[in-house]
Structure formats: C-alpha cells, structure tokens
C-alpha cells in the first residue's frame, strides 16, 4: 500500500497521473511535463512535496549534537536561516542500528534553525528525501544522546507545498500583494516572507496553525516552500491555486526544472560512496576541525584531484540517461572519460542536457565530447552550470 499525502484525493480528482515514488503515490503530471515546466518558468508552479521527510530536532544539546552529526557546520547557523548539508552515517536496515561500521552518505538535506524553545533549548527542522527518510530517521534516533535532544519525525502530521516561479511575489510593477501568497497570508506576514533572503525561514501561521515558510526550492526559480499542518494542506493548496498565474505541477516537471538548475538529486548526483569534491558538493562538507561520521574518509579525498561535475549540452533533442558513458576521441583512439548522472530533454532550451562526472582534464567549458546513448554516439559540449539561471533575482 502506497503512502498518501494530505493532497492525494485532490490530485486524483484533478487529473493527477499518479505513480509510485519512493513508496508514495505522487502525481508525475496533471497536463504535460513540458507545459508544467514552462508554466513554472513563466508564472507560478505549485508542487506537492509532502512525501519529503520532515524531522524536528530540539533540546538544550540539539545544536551541539547536530554539529557532530552533519557534514555542514550547524553551531553558527542563526535563527531563521537554513543550509544544505549531507547526512553521513551507517546504513543498517535492521531495527537495531549499529553505530559502528563504515559511515556512508545517507542523504542530502536542508537544515534550518528555528526560534529557541521557551526554556531556551534549540530547535531545528531537517528536510530529507522520501526514499532515505526511514534509514536517516533510524540512524539519527540510534545516535541520540541519553538526554538533551529530542527528535520527532513530523512527516505524516504535516504537508509541504512548494510555490515556485517568477510571479510568486507578483509582477515587479504590481508588487508582492499581487502574487498567489496574498491568498494565504496577511499583508504584514507577506512583507516578512518577501523580505526573506534565499535560505531564510519564517515561522508564522495559516488557518490558525503554525507554518514554516522558507525562501527555497528545487526549480531554479524564486519562491517558497511551506510546511503546514496536514489538516490545512488542501485549503492552503486551493487558496494558492485560486490565483490566475498559478498551476499545479507534478514531480515530472520538478525533475526537469531541477536539472536545468543543476541541483543535485540523491541517487543520481550523489550516492552512498560519492566523493563530494568530485560531485561538485565540496561546499556541503565542512571538514576542517570537525568530526562528523565519516569525516576522516571525506577529508582524505579533498584535493585528491578526482573527477569533476559538468553540464553537457546536446545538439539534438535526444537525451542521455543515468549511467551512459561519456567518451573522448583523440588521435583516433577513444576512451571513457566520464558518466552521465542525470539527463533529460530541457523544455527551456529544447534540446538534451545532462549532468555528468568527468575526468578533470576534459571538464572545461567548450570541451567537445561524445555520449554513447543507447548505441549511438551523440556529440556534446561541456558548459558551465547551471544550464538555467533566472534573470530576476
């Protein structure tokens, strides 16, 4: 039996084409992936991302404990700010997790610092991937200290909705009160949301219940992600959709949008044994003077001169797929110089694009290479990332 988000019924009643995604029944599209993609680039796309895992960590020792658990520094994160991090640990599928063993990259996540508890304890929100949530929660719980930190998996009592696109805060000349968020927040709250910087978070209310609004997303567009009570999810979703610039989008366009924005996807750009420095994720590991699980193994790889992450653009509309080989032809000889991690047709540029990890010597923009796509060699050119950058910040 697949898990259902609080918006499941809405999706099925509104032409959502439902698929199994990491054990959840999720809409891959409502109309077409291309039109939902372009709608988000031009207006506002609304995405149900309630399948993502949501965890709250709190207590007097929460900051110190997370500092010892995450690849990214946590202690210096101020209230109302968030950052991208990796979660390293031991993958153990048994109910009783062994804390010894070789740590691997269990997931990537966004950690946000919320307002302190009334008694002064720290509070953090962590958003993880749906597919990795069980093992991440199992690992974190197994590592909790005896006292001083509490962890709640709030995924099933909350919903998460991403509101993404250039018109989220209205057209420039008309102002923030003309965007879809005016349908859910007072002008006073909306001013605060609009004032958030990227990766800023705001705790406020909707429908008389707490919501967490963060200036973030997975599309390359401006926008917010809202975590609400599951009880308010349908009302929140429908209110946002009442705005004429806003349309529902499925996970299909979410993936093509994130690929154009060159954002990593666990299982593609990174997996358990990925070298973060070769994967272009060096920024997500603060190794100096820190000791998170697996820190020594990651530290050794820094500066080891492995591979590098690049963007590839095809002449054709044809797309490479994960695992396809990148080839270098030189002086009549041909060698494999890399591998595709994600590939798709790009609705914005109307041709194939891909993220790949390649040998550093062939990783410079302008380099011409080939990709072996289902038996056919296709010419590609290395480009700088991201493929798509929004013009309005």
């Amino acid at each position, binding site marked *: 039996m697949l898990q259902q988000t609080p918006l499941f019924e809405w999706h099925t009643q509104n032409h959502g084409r439902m698929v199994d995604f990491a054990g959840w029944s999720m809409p*891959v*599209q409502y109309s*077409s*992936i*291309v039109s939902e993609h372009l709608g988000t680039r031009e207006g506002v796309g609304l995405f149900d991302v309630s399948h993502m895992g949501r965890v709250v960590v709190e207590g007097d020792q929460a900051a110190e404990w997370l500092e010892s658990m995450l690849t990214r520094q946590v202690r210096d994160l101020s209230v109302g700010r968030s950052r991208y991090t990796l979660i390293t640990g031991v993958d153990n599928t048994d109910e009783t997790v062994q804390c010894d063993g070789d740590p691997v990259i269990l997931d990537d996540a966004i950690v946000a610092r919320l307002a302190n508890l009334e008694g002064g304890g720290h509070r953090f929100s962590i958003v993880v991937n749906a597919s990795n949530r069980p093992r991440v929660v199992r690992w974190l719980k197994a590592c909790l200290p005896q006292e001083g930190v509490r962890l709640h998996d709030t995924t099933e009592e909350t919903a998460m909705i991403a509101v993404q696109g250039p018109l989220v805060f209205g057209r420039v000349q008309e102002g923030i009160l003309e965007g879809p968020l005016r349908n859910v927040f007072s002008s006073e709250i909306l001013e605060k949301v609009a004032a958030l910087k990227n990766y800023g978070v705001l705790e406020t209310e909707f429908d008389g219940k707490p919501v967490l609004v963060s200036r973030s997303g997975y599309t390359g567009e401006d926008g917010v992600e809202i975590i609400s009570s599951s009880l308010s999810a349908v009302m929140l979703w429908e209110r946002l959709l009442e705005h004429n610039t806003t349309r529902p989008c499925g996970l*299909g366009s979410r993936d*093509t949008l994130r690929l154009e924005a060159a954002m990593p996807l666990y299982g593609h750009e990174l997996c358990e044994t990925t070298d973060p420095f070769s994967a272009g994720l060096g920024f997500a590991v603060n190794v100096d003077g820190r000791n998170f699980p697996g820190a020594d193994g990651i530290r050794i790889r820094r500066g080891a001169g492995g591979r590098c992450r690049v963007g590839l653009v095809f002449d*054709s*509309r*044809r*797309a490479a*797929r994960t695992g396809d080989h990148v080839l270098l032809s030189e002086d009549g000889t041909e060698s494999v110089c890399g591998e595709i991690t994600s590939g*798709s*047709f790009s*609705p914005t540029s109307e041709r194939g694009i891909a993220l790949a990890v390649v040998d550093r010597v062939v990783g410079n923009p302008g380099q011409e290479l080939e990709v072996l796509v*289902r038996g056919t060699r296709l010419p590609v050119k290395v480009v700088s990332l991201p493929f798509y950058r929004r013009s309005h910040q």
Partner: protein
Amino acid sequence: MEKSRRYAKSHEWARLEDDGSVTIGISAYAVEALTDLVFMQLPDVGSTVTAGESFGEIESVKAVSDLYAPISGKVISVNTELPSQLETLNDDPYGSGWIICVEPIEADQIDALFDQEAYDKLIGG
C-alpha cells in the same frame, strides 16, 4: 470507409492497404500514456523489420521506449516528417501520424493481431 486497424499488445497499430502494403503506427492510448514526446528514431527504407522486435525508438521527457514491429516486412516508406513534428502523433495518430509502411513477408500475419474490440478491452476502454 476507414479501413480496419489491428493492434499489437505493445500498442502499435497495423492497417492493410489496398495495394497489399501494411501501414504501422502507435495507438492514441500509447501517445497519451507517453506524453511529452521529444525524439523519434526510425528505420531506413529497404530495411527489414521483424514481428515483436524493435524497429525504432520513441523518447518522451521521462523515458525512452522501443517501437515494436507488429508484423514482419520490408520497409517501403517512412514518415520522415514525423520526427520533427511529433505533435502530429497527438493530433492524428491513425492518419498523418503513421510511422512506417512495410511490404509484409507473410500476408496473414496481421490477422493474428488484436481487433479493435479486443484492443479496447486490453486498454480497459
């Protein structure tokens, strides 16, 4: 009157023409299920296709799918305009969205395919 089409379980259709050739395409159901078509690779005129085997590829934003020949035959014409106008498949999958035309190797092979009623049943229509 429109000639009757027959269907493979892999959602290609085949239609016997007056001159004995067989026109091949993919069903409206397949087009709808694939959505967001971006690329198509077709065989050359003169090549041979074999029943049940791939004769080309169709790619959507999400996935690549093989096109399977519903019958065996020699390719006598190819809709070369189709790959650059894939929306034709949505608009007219049984007319201008035809894919290839073959000279069948066995004239009665087409009879083994699903008729309209059986195909409608297969797709739950």
